């Protein structure tokens, strides 16, 4: 076909050879770019952690219920060995709504033996349990105050560098469960009552986690929302409760570091 007659009409099948060559070149180049871009975007993702969330498997755990100040269950794992499992609700909610029913029946729940069925979340030595229904909580033994773990004072005026995260996503439900990408979600979780946790990493890449409370050791949720998901220096008083640390703070003592969050 002569070039000046090279005229494409979509609903007429014939296409001139020159146009065909142009189209083939365009399509091949596009496919090349497509694959190149897939490679770039796939390989520039940060490495995901090996955290786990057992969405489809439920596990029953039995232990001593207590609050620090957020609901926890101290579970015996071996002779004289215990693990404290943090209790969480479904979605972006705390365990409290799911504990309402049993608390009505047993007003002083702390120190009681409970058996709870839910989905496990775990990473780096910490374990959490998602409760999806208040039907899945059974009281085994009524409260015994001697069983309630006691907070042990460690130190005050301690400065810690880290990021305040929502433990549910961070320890398993989401990847990434920290940083800017995840921040809005973490804010929603913590405003829904999920305990804020400060995740830190030292020079040797050893991580430690601190459950954050107000200065009196009471839950802190609303006040801490603006500081979530940002690398910061947080100072406060450290307590230890079994295998978790607790950090009592005032939000006035949080300093934002203006660093990217991918180092944690």
């Amino acid at each position, binding site marked *: 076909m002569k070039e000046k007659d090279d005229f494409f009409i979509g609903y007429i099948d014939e296409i001139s050879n020159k146009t065909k060559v142009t189209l083939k070149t365009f399509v091949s180049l596009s496919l090349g770019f*497509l694959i190149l871009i897939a490679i770039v975007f796939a390989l520039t993702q940060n490495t995901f952690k090996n955290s786990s969330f057992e969405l489809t498997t439920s596990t029953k755990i039995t232990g001593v219920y207590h609050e620090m100040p957020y609901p926890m269950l101290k579970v015996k794992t071996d002779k004289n060995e215990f693990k404290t499992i943090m209790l969480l609700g479904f979605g972006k909610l705390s365990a409290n709504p799911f504990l309402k029913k049993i608390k009505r029946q047993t007003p002083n729940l702390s120190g009681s033996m409970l058996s709870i069925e839910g989905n496990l979340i775990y990473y780096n030595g910490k374990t959490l349990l998602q409760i999806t229904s208040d039907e899945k909580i059974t009281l085994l033994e009524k409260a015994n105050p001697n069983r309630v773990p006691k907070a042990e004072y460690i130190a005050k005026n301690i400065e810690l560098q880290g990021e305040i995260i929502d433990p549910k996503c961070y320890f398993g439900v989401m990847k990434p469960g920290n940083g800017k990408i995840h921040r809005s979600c973490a804010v929603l979780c913590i405003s829904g009552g999920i305990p804020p946790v400060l995740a830190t990493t030292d020079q040797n890449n050893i991580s430690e986690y601190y459950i954050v409370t107000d200065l009196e050791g009471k839950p802190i949720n609303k006040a801490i929302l603006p500081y979530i998901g940002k690398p910061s220096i947080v100072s406060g008083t450290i307590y230890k409760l079994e295998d978790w640390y607790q950090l009592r703070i005032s939000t006035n003592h949080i300093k934002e570091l203006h660093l990217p969050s991918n180092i944690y």
Partner: protein
Amino acid sequence: MGVNYQTVLWNRNKKIYDRWIGLSMLIYLISFIGLTFITNVQTSVETLIIRAFGTLAIVLLHIILVIGPLSRINTRFLPLLYNRRHLGVSMFLAALIHGGFSLFQFHTLGNVNPIYALFSSNMDYNSLKNFPFQVLGFFALIILFLMAATSHDFWLKNLSAKSWKRLHMMVYFAYALIIMHVFLGSFQQQPSLWSTAILSFGFVVITALHISTGSKERKLDHIKTTDTNEGWDYVCDIDEIPEDRAKIFIVDNERIAVFKYNNKLSAISNVCKHQGGPLGEGKVVDGCVTCPWHGYQYLPHNGQSPPPFTEQVSTYRLKLIDKKVYVSPKALPEGTEVDPVIFNN
């Protein structure tokens, strides 16, 4: 006449086009997902879906945005323009999967409704570093939705070509929002020279292509007659117009197309009633001026689409003095019959 005239029907070219869209999307998804599984196996399914479809959408958007200027630069790219709307709708669907999953993953199951949560969880609107980038993606998705929903010719007619065009020009705004969505979101947490470079490269290519076609178009609008004869403007010599083709010219700030066919000359508006395609770059096929973009047709002597279609464009009077073509600058009402100028070779 009219046997070839179809507006929106399936045909072989569209089917081939769609097959290539589907295949390309599949290749992209398989590459992204496969590579992530091989190199970063601890990923979660949700993140994989969010990222695979988000990045697919932005890649498709780039392809969509280069097709326009490419086919202005070289008419051999026009077949890519022909069915671009399917590419657009596919891109929207990919973006919807990305946005929908993100909305579900990050903003639902909380103590407030998800849309409210999207806007209010992160309130650092005054900081670039902490900006709630999801909001930008959300607005972009709304624009893409409106475009996809109105992509059918039914809407083109009902919204009027002008408002339709205005709506669809918002794709550039959506593009800007998406670029910021990525630079203020993902790229802050996963800074990488490679991914930044590739999106910047895309931006430069798109901008350069648009500037170059833009300046070409502006030049066209500055064509002036070199001779006026009793109110008639000189257009060109008759030999400058190829057979069955047109010369584009400007009168009264309007683009017109002067066609030469069958020893006749006729002038009509250059602007196709469908999506404003350049009729003057079209061709007379089966006696009808055929738009290069999607093949709408008009009779050269009255600017009317052959029945049963009802589109009409303005016509212009011509006269021939020796070999010189002159046009009367006043547009006649759309669809006005004008006797073609007849000439002998």
